[in-house]
Protein backbone atom coordinates (compact mmCIF):
# COMPACT_ATOMS: atom_id res chain seq x y z
CA UNK A 1 0.00 0.00 0.00
CA UNK A 2 3.01 2.31 0.14
CA UNK A 3 2.31 3.56 -3.41
CA UNK A 4 -0.67 5.37 -1.98
CA UNK A 5 1.69 7.22 0.38
CA UNK A 6 -0.57 6.70 3.39
CA UNK A 7 -0.19 8.87 6.43
CA UNK A 8 -1.82 8.40 9.81
CA UNK A 9 -4.01 11.55 9.64
CA UNK A 10 -5.53 10.69 6.26
CA UNK A 11 -6.03 7.09 7.38
CA UNK A 12 -7.88 8.33 10.46
CA UNK A 13 -9.87 10.77 8.32
CA UNK A 14 -11.07 8.11 5.88
CA UNK A 15 -11.70 5.57 8.64
CA UNK A 16 -13.96 8.04 10.43
CA UNK A 17 -15.86 8.75 7.22
CA UNK A 18 -16.25 5.00 6.66
CA UNK A 19 -17.33 4.55 10.28
CA UNK A 20 -19.90 7.34 9.90
CA UNK A 21 -21.33 5.72 6.76
CA UNK A 22 -21.48 2.33 8.46
CA UNK A 23 -23.08 3.90 11.53
CA UNK A 24 -25.65 5.69 9.40
CA UNK A 25 -26.49 2.40 7.67
CA UNK A 26 -27.06 0.61 10.97
CA UNK A 27 -29.09 3.55 12.30
CA UNK A 28 -31.18 3.50 9.13
CA UNK A 29 -31.89 -0.23 9.53
CA UNK A 30 -32.81 0.15 13.20
CA UNK A 31 -35.01 3.22 12.70
CA UNK A 32 -35.55 4.43 9.13
CA UNK A 33 -35.19 8.16 8.64
CA UNK A 34 -38.20 10.40 8.16
CA UNK A 35 -37.82 13.40 5.92
CA UNK A 36 -38.55 16.58 7.85
CA UNK A 37 -37.98 20.29 7.83
CA UNK A 38 -35.88 21.99 10.46
CA UNK A 39 -34.12 25.33 10.33
CA UNK A 40 -32.68 24.57 6.89
CA UNK A 41 -34.73 25.97 4.00
CA UNK A 42 -35.29 22.49 2.54
CA UNK A 43 -36.70 19.33 4.06
CA UNK A 44 -33.93 16.82 4.63
CA UNK A 45 -33.33 13.25 5.63
CA UNK A 46 -30.67 12.21 8.11
CA UNK A 47 -28.21 11.45 5.30
CA UNK A 48 -28.79 14.84 3.68
CA UNK A 49 -27.98 16.55 6.96
CA UNK A 50 -24.81 14.49 7.40
CA UNK A 51 -23.70 15.45 3.90
CA UNK A 52 -24.45 19.14 4.48
CA UNK A 53 -22.62 18.93 7.79
CA UNK A 54 -19.53 17.31 6.28
CA UNK A 55 -19.43 19.69 3.33
CA UNK A 56 -19.72 22.74 5.56
CA UNK A 57 -17.10 21.21 7.87
CA UNK A 58 -14.72 21.12 4.90
CA UNK A 59 -15.29 24.81 4.25
CA UNK A 60 -14.97 25.68 7.95
CA UNK A 61 -11.58 23.93 7.99
CA UNK A 62 -10.46 25.69 4.81
CA UNK A 63 -11.49 29.05 6.25
CA UNK A 64 -9.66 28.48 9.51
CA UNK A 65 -6.50 27.13 7.83
CA UNK A 66 -6.35 29.72 5.12
CA UNK A 67 -7.46 32.93 6.70
CA UNK A 68 -6.88 32.72 10.45
CA UNK A 69 -4.00 31.66 12.65
CA UNK A 70 -6.28 29.57 14.86
CA UNK A 71 -5.50 25.93 15.54
CA UNK A 72 -7.06 23.35 13.24
CA UNK A 73 -8.52 21.69 16.34
CA UNK A 74 -10.77 24.72 16.83
CA UNK A 75 -12.08 24.18 13.31
CA UNK A 76 -12.64 20.52 14.13
CA UNK A 77 -14.52 21.39 17.33
CA UNK A 78 -16.70 23.99 15.61
CA UNK A 79 -17.45 21.53 12.80
CA UNK A 80 -18.36 18.77 15.23
CA UNK A 81 -20.74 21.05 17.16
CA UNK A 82 -22.23 22.34 13.90
CA UNK A 83 -22.70 18.76 12.68
CA UNK A 84 -24.53 17.82 15.87
CA UNK A 85 -26.75 20.92 15.74
CA UNK A 86 -27.51 20.17 12.11
CA UNK A 87 -28.32 16.53 12.75
CA UNK A 88 -30.65 17.41 15.60
CA UNK A 89 -32.40 20.61 14.47
CA UNK A 90 -31.47 21.00 10.77
Amino acid sequence: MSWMVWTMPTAIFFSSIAAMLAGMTIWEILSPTIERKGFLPISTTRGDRLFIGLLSAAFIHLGVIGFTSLSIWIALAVSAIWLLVLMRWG
Partner: protein
Amino acid sequence: MNNKVPNNRAWLLVLPMLVLVAFSAIIPLMTVVNYSVQDVLGPNARFFTGTEWFESMLNDSALQAAFLRQISFSLIILAIQIPLGIGIALIMPKRGWQASAVLILITLPLLIPWNVVGSIWQIFTRGDIGLMGWGLRELGVDYNITRNAGDAWVTIVLMDVWHWTPLVAMLCYSGLRSIPEAYYQAARIDRASKWAVFRYIQLPKLTNVLVIAVLLRFMHSFMIYAEPFVLTGGGPGSATTFLSQSLTTMAVGQQDLGPSAAFSLIYFLVILLVSWVFYTTIMHMQKDKHPHGGA
Protein backbone atom coordinates in the same frame (compact mmCIF):
# COMPACT_ATOMS: atom_id res chain seq x y z
CA MET B 1 -50.46 5.83 3.52
CA ASN B 2 -47.45 3.99 2.26
CA ASN B 3 -47.87 0.23 2.73
CA LYS B 4 -44.92 -0.78 0.62
CA VAL B 5 -42.34 -2.88 2.40
CA PRO B 6 -38.91 -1.42 1.68
CA ASN B 7 -36.59 -4.03 0.27
CA ASN B 8 -33.03 -2.85 0.11
CA ARG B 9 -31.59 -6.07 -1.26
CA ALA B 10 -31.56 -4.58 -4.75
CA TRP B 11 -28.67 -2.42 -3.59
CA LEU B 12 -26.49 -5.53 -3.77
CA LEU B 13 -26.79 -5.31 -7.55
CA VAL B 14 -24.91 -2.01 -7.35
CA LEU B 15 -21.87 -3.73 -5.80
CA PRO B 16 -19.93 -4.41 -9.05
CA MET B 17 -20.35 -0.75 -10.00
CA LEU B 18 -19.18 0.27 -6.55
CA VAL B 19 -16.01 -1.79 -6.94
CA LEU B 20 -15.39 -0.19 -10.31
CA VAL B 21 -15.94 3.31 -8.94
CA ALA B 22 -13.70 2.51 -6.00
CA PHE B 23 -10.81 1.86 -8.35
CA SER B 24 -11.58 4.62 -10.83
CA ALA B 25 -12.52 7.40 -8.45
CA ILE B 26 -12.51 6.76 -4.73
CA ILE B 27 -9.02 5.31 -4.31
CA PRO B 28 -7.40 7.91 -6.61
CA LEU B 29 -9.18 10.62 -4.64
CA MET B 30 -7.82 9.14 -1.41
CA THR B 31 -4.36 9.25 -2.92
CA VAL B 32 -4.85 12.92 -3.74
CA VAL B 33 -5.74 13.56 -0.10
CA ASN B 34 -2.57 11.73 0.93
CA TYR B 35 -0.45 13.82 -1.39
CA SER B 36 -2.05 17.04 -0.19
CA VAL B 37 -0.65 16.67 3.32
CA GLN B 38 2.85 15.60 2.31
CA ASP B 39 5.81 16.71 0.27
CA VAL B 40 6.47 13.65 -1.87
CA LEU B 41 9.84 13.81 -3.60
CA GLY B 42 10.19 10.13 -4.44
CA PRO B 43 9.08 6.68 -3.34
CA ASN B 44 11.24 6.82 -0.23
CA ALA B 45 11.55 10.56 0.30
CA ARG B 46 8.39 12.08 1.68
CA PHE B 47 7.75 14.54 4.44
CA PHE B 48 4.55 15.23 6.33
CA THR B 49 3.56 18.86 5.90
CA GLY B 50 0.09 18.88 7.45
CA THR B 51 -2.05 21.79 6.36
CA GLU B 52 0.83 23.83 4.95
CA TRP B 53 -0.11 23.30 1.29
CA PHE B 54 -3.71 24.25 1.91
CA GLU B 55 -2.61 27.40 3.69
CA SER B 56 -0.26 28.44 0.91
CA MET B 57 -2.79 27.61 -1.82
CA LEU B 58 -5.56 29.61 -0.16
CA ASN B 59 -3.24 32.58 0.24
CA ASP B 60 -1.62 32.32 -3.19
CA SER B 61 -2.41 35.63 -4.86
CA ALA B 62 -2.14 34.15 -8.37
CA LEU B 63 -4.70 31.49 -7.51
CA GLN B 64 -6.99 33.97 -5.80
CA ALA B 65 -6.84 36.10 -8.93
CA ALA B 66 -7.62 33.03 -11.07
CA PHE B 67 -10.55 32.24 -8.80
CA LEU B 68 -11.99 35.77 -9.10
CA ARG B 69 -11.40 35.68 -12.85
CA GLN B 70 -13.21 32.35 -13.01
CA ILE B 71 -16.23 33.67 -11.07
CA SER B 72 -16.42 36.84 -13.18
CA PHE B 73 -16.17 34.79 -16.35
CA SER B 74 -19.01 32.51 -15.26
CA LEU B 75 -21.22 35.46 -14.26
CA ILE B 76 -20.52 37.38 -17.47
CA ILE B 77 -21.35 34.48 -19.75
CA LEU B 78 -24.51 33.71 -17.74
CA ALA B 79 -25.64 37.34 -17.99
CA ILE B 80 -25.27 37.16 -21.77
CA GLN B 81 -26.22 33.57 -22.59
CA ILE B 82 -29.43 33.26 -20.59
CA PRO B 83 -31.29 36.32 -21.99
CA LEU B 84 -29.86 35.65 -25.45
CA GLY B 85 -30.90 32.00 -25.30
CA ILE B 86 -34.45 32.96 -24.28
CA GLY B 87 -34.56 35.53 -27.09
CA ILE B 88 -33.41 33.03 -29.70
CA ALA B 89 -35.90 30.43 -28.47
CA LEU B 90 -38.72 32.98 -28.73
CA ILE B 91 -38.01 33.85 -32.36
CA MET B 92 -37.32 30.28 -33.53
CA PRO B 93 -39.95 28.96 -35.96
CA LYS B 94 -42.44 26.74 -34.20
CA ARG B 95 -43.33 24.12 -36.79
CA GLY B 96 -42.66 22.85 -40.28
CA TRP B 97 -39.35 22.25 -42.01
CA GLN B 98 -38.09 25.67 -40.90
CA ALA B 99 -38.22 24.52 -37.28
CA SER B 100 -36.04 21.46 -38.00
CA ALA B 101 -33.63 23.44 -40.16
CA VAL B 102 -33.14 26.13 -37.50
CA LEU B 103 -32.73 23.49 -34.79
CA ILE B 104 -29.96 21.76 -36.75
CA LEU B 105 -28.23 25.05 -37.55
CA ILE B 106 -28.35 26.10 -33.93
CA THR B 107 -27.07 22.78 -32.61
CA LEU B 108 -23.99 22.75 -34.82
CA PRO B 109 -21.65 24.63 -32.44
CA LEU B 110 -22.51 22.15 -29.67
CA LEU B 111 -21.13 19.28 -31.76
CA ILE B 112 -17.66 20.75 -32.15
CA PRO B 113 -14.98 19.41 -29.78
CA TRP B 114 -13.71 21.99 -27.33
CA ASN B 115 -10.15 22.04 -28.61
CA VAL B 116 -11.42 22.57 -32.13
CA VAL B 117 -13.55 25.50 -30.98
CA GLY B 118 -10.38 27.04 -29.56
CA SER B 119 -8.49 26.48 -32.81
CA ILE B 120 -11.33 27.86 -34.92
CA TRP B 121 -11.39 31.07 -32.90
CA GLN B 122 -7.62 31.24 -32.76
CA ILE B 123 -7.48 31.35 -36.54
CA PHE B 124 -10.62 33.51 -36.81
CA THR B 125 -9.08 36.23 -34.63
CA ARG B 126 -5.59 36.29 -36.16
CA GLY B 127 -4.68 39.67 -37.56
CA ASP B 128 -3.02 38.34 -40.72
CA ILE B 129 -5.29 35.54 -41.93
CA GLY B 130 -8.32 35.47 -39.61
CA LEU B 131 -11.56 36.93 -40.88
CA MET B 132 -12.45 38.74 -37.67
CA GLY B 133 -8.92 39.81 -36.76
CA TRP B 134 -8.16 41.01 -40.28
CA GLY B 135 -11.56 42.69 -40.67
CA LEU B 136 -11.27 44.60 -37.41
CA ARG B 137 -7.75 45.70 -38.31
CA GLU B 138 -8.89 46.94 -41.70
CA LEU B 139 -11.65 48.89 -39.94
CA GLY B 140 -8.95 50.58 -37.89
CA VAL B 141 -9.56 48.79 -34.58
CA ASP B 142 -6.40 47.94 -32.70
CA TYR B 143 -7.39 44.36 -31.97
CA ASN B 144 -4.84 41.86 -30.72
CA ILE B 145 -5.65 39.05 -28.32
CA THR B 146 -2.03 38.21 -27.60
CA ARG B 147 -1.19 41.72 -26.47
CA ASN B 148 -4.38 43.27 -25.15
CA ALA B 149 -6.07 41.65 -22.13
CA GLY B 150 -9.41 43.33 -22.86
CA ASP B 151 -9.44 41.94 -26.41
CA ALA B 152 -8.60 38.47 -25.09
CA TRP B 153 -11.47 38.64 -22.62
CA VAL B 154 -13.98 39.86 -25.17
CA THR B 155 -12.92 37.08 -27.54
CA ILE B 156 -13.17 34.33 -24.93
CA VAL B 157 -16.60 35.52 -23.82
CA LEU B 158 -17.70 35.76 -27.46
CA MET B 159 -16.38 32.26 -28.12
CA ASP B 160 -18.20 30.80 -25.16
CA VAL B 161 -21.41 32.62 -26.12
CA TRP B 162 -21.09 31.25 -29.64
CA HIS B 163 -20.39 27.74 -28.39
CA TRP B 164 -22.94 27.41 -25.59
CA THR B 165 -25.87 29.80 -26.13
CA PRO B 166 -27.42 27.11 -28.39
CA LEU B 167 -27.73 24.85 -25.36
CA VAL B 168 -29.71 27.51 -23.47
CA ALA B 169 -31.77 28.24 -26.57
CA MET B 170 -32.62 24.56 -27.07
CA LEU B 171 -33.61 24.09 -23.43
CA CYS B 172 -35.83 27.19 -23.61
CA TYR B 173 -37.25 26.09 -26.94
CA SER B 174 -38.32 22.76 -25.49
CA GLY B 175 -39.76 24.58 -22.49
CA LEU B 176 -41.76 26.89 -24.73
CA ARG B 177 -43.06 23.98 -26.82
CA SER B 178 -44.50 22.36 -23.71
CA ILE B 179 -46.83 25.30 -23.00
CA PRO B 180 -50.36 24.26 -24.02
CA GLU B 181 -52.01 26.31 -26.76
CA ALA B 182 -54.93 27.05 -24.41
CA TYR B 183 -52.78 29.54 -22.47
CA TYR B 184 -52.14 31.53 -25.62
CA GLN B 185 -55.81 31.40 -26.59
CA ALA B 186 -56.78 32.74 -23.18
CA ALA B 187 -54.21 35.50 -23.58
CA ARG B 188 -55.60 36.41 -27.00
CA ILE B 189 -59.14 36.61 -25.56
CA ASP B 190 -57.80 38.97 -22.88
CA ARG B 191 -56.00 40.90 -25.62
CA ALA B 192 -52.78 40.53 -23.67
CA SER B 193 -49.76 42.29 -25.12
CA LYS B 194 -46.75 40.31 -26.33
CA TRP B 195 -44.84 41.45 -23.29
CA ALA B 196 -47.64 40.34 -20.94
CA VAL B 197 -47.70 36.91 -22.61
CA PHE B 198 -43.96 36.64 -22.12
CA ARG B 199 -44.00 37.96 -18.57
CA TYR B 200 -46.98 36.03 -17.21
CA ILE B 201 -47.14 32.87 -19.34
CA GLN B 202 -43.85 32.05 -21.01
CA LEU B 203 -41.35 33.12 -18.37
CA PRO B 204 -43.05 31.35 -15.44
CA LYS B 205 -43.34 28.19 -17.53
CA LEU B 206 -39.64 28.43 -18.36
CA THR B 207 -38.47 28.60 -14.74
CA ASN B 208 -37.57 24.92 -14.52
CA VAL B 209 -35.53 24.74 -17.70
CA LEU B 210 -33.87 28.05 -16.86
CA VAL B 211 -32.66 26.73 -13.51
CA ILE B 212 -31.17 23.75 -15.32
CA ALA B 213 -29.63 26.01 -17.96
CA VAL B 214 -28.12 28.40 -15.41
CA LEU B 215 -26.60 25.66 -13.31
CA LEU B 216 -25.33 23.60 -16.26
CA ARG B 217 -23.73 26.66 -17.81
CA PHE B 218 -22.29 27.75 -14.48
CA MET B 219 -20.63 24.42 -13.83
CA HIS B 220 -19.42 24.05 -17.39
CA SER B 221 -17.87 27.49 -17.44
CA PHE B 222 -16.40 27.02 -14.00
CA MET B 223 -14.38 24.08 -15.28
CA ILE B 224 -13.52 25.59 -18.66
CA TYR B 225 -10.09 24.56 -19.86
CA ALA B 226 -9.49 23.63 -23.48
CA GLU B 227 -11.03 26.62 -25.24
CA PRO B 228 -9.14 29.49 -23.57
CA PHE B 229 -6.01 27.35 -23.40
CA VAL B 230 -5.94 26.90 -27.16
CA LEU B 231 -7.12 30.45 -27.91
CA THR B 232 -4.90 32.52 -25.63
CA GLY B 233 -2.84 30.06 -23.59
CA GLY B 234 -4.05 31.97 -20.54
CA GLY B 235 -2.45 35.19 -21.70
CA PRO B 236 -1.61 37.93 -22.20
CA GLY B 237 0.31 37.52 -18.95
CA SER B 238 -2.22 35.69 -16.83
CA ALA B 239 -5.23 37.76 -17.88
CA THR B 240 -7.25 34.75 -19.04
CA THR B 241 -5.74 32.00 -16.88
CA PHE B 242 -8.66 30.16 -15.31
CA LEU B 243 -8.60 27.65 -12.47
CA SER B 244 -8.18 24.44 -14.49
CA GLN B 245 -5.25 25.90 -16.32
CA SER B 246 -3.53 27.04 -13.13
CA LEU B 247 -3.97 23.53 -11.81
CA THR B 248 -2.56 21.88 -14.93
CA THR B 249 0.45 24.17 -14.95
CA MET B 250 1.15 23.31 -11.34
CA ALA B 251 0.55 19.56 -11.52
CA VAL B 252 1.84 18.66 -14.97
CA GLY B 253 4.15 21.54 -15.78
CA GLN B 254 5.94 21.95 -12.48
CA GLN B 255 5.23 18.53 -10.92
CA ASP B 256 4.34 20.20 -7.61
CA LEU B 257 2.24 17.28 -6.46
CA GLY B 258 1.57 18.40 -2.90
CA PRO B 259 0.33 21.93 -3.66
CA SER B 260 -1.63 20.81 -6.69
CA ALA B 261 -3.29 18.05 -4.67
CA ALA B 262 -4.33 20.61 -2.06
CA PHE B 263 -5.54 22.94 -4.79
CA SER B 264 -7.47 20.12 -6.53
CA LEU B 265 -9.27 19.34 -3.31
CA ILE B 266 -10.29 22.97 -2.80
CA TYR B 267 -11.44 23.16 -6.42
CA PHE B 268 -13.30 19.87 -5.99
CA LEU B 269 -15.04 21.13 -2.86
CA VAL B 270 -16.24 24.27 -4.62
CA ILE B 271 -17.57 22.20 -7.52
CA LEU B 272 -19.13 19.71 -5.12
CA LEU B 273 -20.92 22.58 -3.36
CA VAL B 274 -22.25 24.01 -6.62
CA SER B 275 -23.32 20.57 -7.90
CA TRP B 276 -25.10 19.88 -4.66
CA VAL B 277 -26.99 23.17 -4.86
CA PHE B 278 -27.81 22.28 -8.48
CA TYR B 279 -29.10 18.84 -7.57
CA THR B 280 -31.04 20.00 -4.52
CA THR B 281 -32.71 22.87 -6.36
CA ILE B 282 -33.90 20.61 -9.15
CA MET B 283 -35.08 17.87 -6.80
CA HIS B 284 -36.82 20.47 -4.70
CA MET B 285 -38.63 21.93 -7.67
CA GLN B 286 -39.81 18.51 -8.76
CA LYS B 287 -41.10 17.82 -5.27
CA ASP B 288 -43.04 21.09 -5.27
CA LYS B 289 -44.54 20.15 -8.59
CA HIS B 290 -45.72 16.68 -7.52
CA PRO B 291 -46.36 17.05 -3.80
CA HIS B 292 -47.83 13.54 -3.58
CA GLY B 293 -45.62 11.78 -6.07
CA GLY B 294 -42.42 11.79 -4.06
CA ALA B 295 -39.24 12.49 -5.97
